[in-house]
């Protein structure tokens, strides 16, 4: 008898087997009734996720069992049990935990799409009543920052997410080599033509003076830190806010960006092999070795930028002087680079959580500045001291690194600015260290240059506040954006064989056949329904102004 003749029998056996297994996998616990009786302040027991980044030093225990988890259990309002979620694989780990009914009560997750997915699967608990009845601290925070509520509301109009307020500052800074400009007698470029001319001069006139033709005007053309630069310059995004408050979806804005990139490419001001530099590391290294004149960095963390990139550049090329460059004016208008997300949602509650009240108490505990400060600086007197004006100073860097530096994920709902002046990025720099002093100068310059009321060149809003398309539309959308991107890349490098006009036609065709009608419809409907709830860039600018006012008042 062949395998095929036996197949039905085998499948029957297998089926029976799995049926048995399914039979015994039913959840034992019935949905618990609310733990309503107010027995005076009995400590609740809850479980919570904590990211594991593999960074707990040797001898400090594990991320779910260490001095900080003990500290939380001793000082917090509830008994906490932590479940480690590997940072990179958080989605699959959470899926498994949720599907098997063993997910923790409180789930911390940065990924907007992961949280949205949990909401779509009805795994989340609405929080409005909980906050209304049981919260003090978080309720006060919501009162102070209504945006936190706005951002946490899902499509059914209820609040599902806890979050924190972040300081608004530029996420990307465009650096230009001021020493090169001076040497060649040039000005910071303010429009497309000047940009091209300066990049050309940087490439051809040997600005580093070593007599070798080894410099480029601009780096990171396609991948890496710089990736968004040209998109920001032209606001070349798929979803945009139109003139009259309407939403615009489509590839039309991409053409001008491609045109300019093509001009730069053909002028030879960029490494011809930019497509093979997949993570932009070659280009970044070139910049740090003083071979590139204009380069955009992810500077979400200027302190980190100071100790890594800036320090390396200052060692390699002591003469290098950087300057922050505003985005040039173009035929599409003038824009500013992307900002940090000030209203960041970070936590949700499992719909099966049995003790929501204790969760609320715990969130209230985490939101308090004293608690948040502990996860940033450690225990007062042991890891840091407060100076007369309230500035926290680390007592012993080595001890801090070993015991505190990895604890920041415990503070995911903590709004740093609640600490006052010393929560702001500007006060974190140590001017005694040359690289940090330089970084502070650049940070201030970047704030001044990019925090303007010019529209942000990233379309409608920060990606973390964009809605998620339904699954099959999302697949179509990803496919069509990838295809259009390829079309334009081809147009950038193909010279006369493939013009931008042809590419724009092809892109339009691709878009029309790739599901544009459905996608546009979906976004339009979403916008019609939600536009008053969605936080957009102008909201963030308002937050920025408030924050700066508060900062200056201190």
């Amino acid at each position, binding site marked *: 008898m062949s*395998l095929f003749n*036996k197949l039905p029998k*085998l499948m029957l*056996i*297998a089926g029976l087997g*799995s049926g048995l*297994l*399914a039979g015994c*996998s039913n959840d034992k616990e019935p949905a618990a009734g609310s733990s309503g009786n107010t027995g005076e302040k009995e400590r609740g027991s809850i479980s919570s996720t904590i990211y*594991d*980044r*593999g*960074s*707990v*030093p*040797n001898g400090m*225990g*594990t991320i*779910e*069992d260490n001095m900080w988890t003990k500290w939380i259990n001793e000082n917090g309002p509830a008994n906490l049990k932590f*479940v*480690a979620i*590997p*940072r*990179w694989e958080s989605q*699959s*780990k959470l*899926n*498994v935990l949720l*599907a*098997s009914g*063993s997910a923790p009560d409180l789930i911390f997750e*940065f990924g907007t799409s992961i949280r949205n997915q949990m909401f779509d699967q009805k795994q989340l608990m609405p929080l409005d009543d909980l906050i209304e009845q049981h919260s003090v601290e978080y309720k006060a925070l919501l009162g102070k920052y209504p945006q936190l509520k706005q951002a946490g509301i899902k499509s059914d109009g209820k609040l599902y997410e806890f979050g924190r307020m*972040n300081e608004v500052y530029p996420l990307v800074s465009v650096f230009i080599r001021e020493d090169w400009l001076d040497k060649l007698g040039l000005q910071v470029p303010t429009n497309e033509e000047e940009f091209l001319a300066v990049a050309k001069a940087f490439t051809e006139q040997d600005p580093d003076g070593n007599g070798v033709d080894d410099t480029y005007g601009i780096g990171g053309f396609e991948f890496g830190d710089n990736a968004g630069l040209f998109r920001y310059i032209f606001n070349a995004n798929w979803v945009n806010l139109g003139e009259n408050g309407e939403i615009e979806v489509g590839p039309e804005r991409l053409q001008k960006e491609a045109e300019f990139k093509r001009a730069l490419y053909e002028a030879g001001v960029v490494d011809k092999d930019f497509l093979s530099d997949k993570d932009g*590391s*070659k280009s970044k*290294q070139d910049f*740090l*070795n003083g071979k590139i004149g204009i380069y955009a960095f*992810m500077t*979400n*963390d*200027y*302190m*980190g930028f100071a100790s890594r*990139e800036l320090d*390396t550049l200052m*060692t*390699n090329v002591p003469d290098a002087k950087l300057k922050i460059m505003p985005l040039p004016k173009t035929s599409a208008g003038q824009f500013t680079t992307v900002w*940090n*997300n000030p209203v*960041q949602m970070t936590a949700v509650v499992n719909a099966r959580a049995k003790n929501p009240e204790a969760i609320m108490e715990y969130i209230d505990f985490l939101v308090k500045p004293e608690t948040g400060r502990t996860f940033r600086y450690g225990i007062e007197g042991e890891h840091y001291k407060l100076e007369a004006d309230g500035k926290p100073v680390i007592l012993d860097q080595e001890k801090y*690194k*070993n015991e505190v*530096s*990895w604890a*920041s994920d415990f*503070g995911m709902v903590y709004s740093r600015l609640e600490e006052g002046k010393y929560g702001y*990025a500007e006060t974190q720099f140590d001017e005694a260290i040359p690289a940090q002093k330089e970084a502070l100068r650049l940070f201030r310059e970047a704030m001044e240059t990019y925090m303007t009321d010019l529209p942000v060149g990233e379309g409608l809003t920060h990606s*973390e506040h964009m809605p998620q398309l339904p699954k099959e539309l999302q697949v179509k959308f990803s496919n069509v954006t990838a295809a259009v991107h390829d079309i334009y890349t081809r147009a950038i490098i193909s010279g006369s064989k493939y013009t931008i006009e042809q590419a724009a036609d092809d892109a339009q065709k691709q878009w029309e056949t790739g599901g544009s009608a459905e996608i546009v419809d979906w976004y339009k409907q979403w916008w019609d329904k939600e536009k008053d709830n969605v936080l957009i860039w102008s909201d963030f600018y308002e937050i920025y102004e408030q924050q700066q006012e508060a900062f200056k008042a201190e």
Partner: protein
Amino acid sequence: MRDSRSEKLFYLLNYVLLTIIALSCILPLLNVIALSLSGADAVASGRVTLWPVETSLASFKSLFTGTPIMRSFWNSVQITLIGTGLSMLVTIMAAYPLSRRQFYSRRFFTLAMVFTMIFNGGLIPSYLVVQNLGLVNSYAALWLPGLVSTYNMLLMRSAFEQLPGEVDEAAKIDGCGETGILLRIVLPLSKPMLATLALFYGVGYWNAFMSVMIYINDTAKYNMTVLVQNMIKSTSMIQDFADPTMLATMTPEGIRSAAVIVMIVPILAVYPLLQKYFVKGVMLGSIKG
């Protein structure tokens, strides 16, 4: 016999091709070694290629003090040794009867096992099974569900079948039972096969990633693959960095390279020891050895 011109050309091409392939394997490894032994500045500005620049052991030092690598290394060793032992044991116990012609329903059992190669339950059902067996958070969850690789079992079965039947007839006449035949005749004659399969299993357990990540919740029990993966990948989670203190947990490239080295050295050390068996190796059909 002297080689003809075309044969010489063929050999030349072979050598060139194999050299290129060998280099493509060795060069990245050398690069990682060089990175792990270089200073942080040199790594950041891309001055390190195949030889360490500003040589220092700082990366290894921070790796051993600043991360739980020793613990996870020890976990990997346990998972691998015990897992390989168990898998080999059960594979032998499955392959031997299936290789006996007198075993009545061997065809049925073979097909039943082959069936599992084609169909499996998927992640969540597997997890539910493991969870309900109470294996979550224990290494048994890594060992039991994949105890026997069907493919390896088939390899072993056909290796056993190749042994001439006269040998065990002779053993039987001398008074050996089935166990005796297995232990004294079949296994000693199949050493190359056993060594090779043990290596297959060993490498599999050493590299175990998904299973550890899914089934093990206690980070003290993580093995090196999960730890190293976490160290490498956490670096690129942009959204975390809204809070700059998060950056403190980022692992610099030198340390990550050092971790990769620590992870691959044991396997590199085992290969040469087993190399002589590979020459004999495994076969499924046709003739070798």
